[in-house]
């Protein structure tokens, strides 16, 4: 098992491909929940059943892998160090829930980390695909390829009327959760988010900040996903979400335009102050770091800052979380030690991108 490459780099290689609308949509994610027929669901199954399920999946990858999927690496969670588990969670490759149920869990990861299949999480399988920018349709296509590939040799728990049966009734039917991660500093700065969130909720979609709680999303990053999985086809779910996201993109763009027009110098000042903090701070807490990283990323999108790549936001957001910091430090750190380490890492990364691109 080669865990190393998955925990070494903060940036998954799919992130460096710049997908459509990358200035606002950081990533698109599709998740399919699937269960095996005749097995008890993970909430109440035995260790033997858990092992059997992992074996079935193992057999499937040894049997045959289609070229569209490529090589998949099987990692058993209980064989991974706690710090490394945390890193995988921070990269969104596995969920905290899978870590909690370590003893029975495993995951399949593809080389570029576009594909992550969690085994024995809340459902027997959680097929997850991630792509850069707004590419929900493409991501769904890949997830379907994986789904069909697994189904060729394994019987799913499926009911004519209810569709794919899942542990939680909120996932039954398609088992599909489609989501996009959006960077919306313009809408936050112009205080429009509070009106947009309820409107989106009314459409059967959910908005939440990914770092921080409620509408006060840290780093201006929001995740928008579908709530309904039953009574709607996969295509409709993805198309509806895409069209809402496109409208939000348009609103964010006009908010940014308005900001540039009305308070250009204040905005530029804000961006460069944050840039100054990140490139000079010696001690920095997560909250401040996240806010500054968002400002710098906005500065890159608006063309104020030219010599830094867009993916810096994705990378630093992951890199500056405590699991990663401790992984780099090679052991546990106290919280003030983390703040020092975080500041150093950010300085190093910014310095590196500046010199390498000039």
């Amino acid at each position: 098992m080669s865990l190393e490459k998955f925990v070494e780099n903060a940036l998954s290689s799919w992130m460096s491909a710049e997908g459509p609308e990358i200035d606002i949509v950081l990533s698109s994610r599709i998740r399919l929940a699937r269960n095996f027929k005749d097995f008890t669901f993970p909430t109440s199954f035995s260790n033997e059943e858990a092992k059997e399920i992992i074996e079935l999946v193992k057999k499937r990858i040894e049997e045959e892998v289609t070229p569209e999927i490529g090589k998949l690496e099987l990692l058993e969670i209980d064989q991974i160090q706690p710090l490394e588990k945390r890193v995988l969670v921070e990269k969104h490759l596995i969920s905290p829930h899978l870590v909690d149920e370590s003893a029975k869990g495993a995951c399949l990861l593809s080389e570029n980390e576009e594909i992550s299949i969690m085994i024995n999480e809340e459902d027997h399988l959680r097929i997850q695909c991630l792509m850069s920018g707004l590419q929900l349709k493409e991501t769904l296509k890949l997830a379907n390829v994986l789904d069909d590939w697994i189904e060729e040799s394994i019987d799913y728990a499926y009911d004519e009327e209810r569709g794919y049966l899942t542990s939680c009734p909120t996932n039954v039917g398609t088992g599909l959760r489609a989501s996009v991660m959006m960077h919306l500093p313009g809408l936050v700065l112009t205080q429009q988010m509070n009106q947009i969130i309820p409107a989106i909720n009314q459409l059967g979609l959910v908005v939440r900040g990914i770092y921080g709680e409620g509408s006060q999303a840290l780093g201006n990053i929001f995740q928008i996903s579908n709530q309904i999985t039953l009574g709607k086809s996969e295509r409709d779910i993805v198309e509806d979400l895409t069209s809402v996201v496109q409208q939000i993109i348009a609103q964010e763009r006009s908010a940014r335009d308005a900001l540039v027009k009305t308070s250009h110098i204040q905005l530029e000042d804000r961006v460069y102050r944050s840039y100054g903090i990140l490139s000079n701070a010696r001690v920095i807490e997560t909250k401040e770091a996240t806010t500054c990283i968002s400002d710098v990323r906005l500065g890159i999108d608006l063309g104020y800052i030219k010599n830094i790549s867009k993916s810096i936001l994705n990378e630093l957001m992951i890199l500056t979380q405590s699991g990663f910091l401790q992984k780099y430090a090679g052991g546990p750190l106290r919280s003030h030690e983390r703040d020092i380490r975080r500041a150093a890492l950010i300085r190093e990364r910014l310095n590196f991108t500046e010199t390498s691109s000039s």
Partner: protein
Amino acid sequence: MICQECHQRPATLHFTKIINGKKTEVMICEKCAQEKGEMAMVAGGHGFSINNLLAGLLNIESNIQQTKANAFPKTEEKRCPHCHRSYKEFVHLGKFGCAECYKTFNDQLNPILKRVHSGNIAHIGKIPKRIGGTIYLRKQISDLKEVLKIHINQEEFEKAAEVRDKVRSLEKRYEAQEGGDEL
């Protein structure tokens, strides 16, 4: 006592968590409590998740049914024959124990699904390719049988015979596929 999280600072907060009947003693320092989000619990609130909300919804359901003149007095004790989960446990956890639970608690399911999925109760999306083949055939057969009944009722025997032949050929195909699956 040293904090069980950071193993550095003294543990100033001691409390007992009971989750799903499992008791855990927690002894941590304030800093770690804040980071782990345990402060909400210490402050007297509850860690809030979709499952809490869902369990709440499901509970309302059973309350309503109970007040409805005890029409289904035994719903709570009903158990799934495959995984032995009771309806009460399902409501408490907000999770089914196995695929069979969907059949066991089918009578209670529609109101729950309606609430969670904006009024929807039936799947209209993807059908698995391999096992779906027979599902599709079975649906065709049952649809045709309905048509057959109508023809017979209306004494259109020629048309009925046509449909009957179709049903027979589909049934043969269905049996062949089913048999093939078991091999």
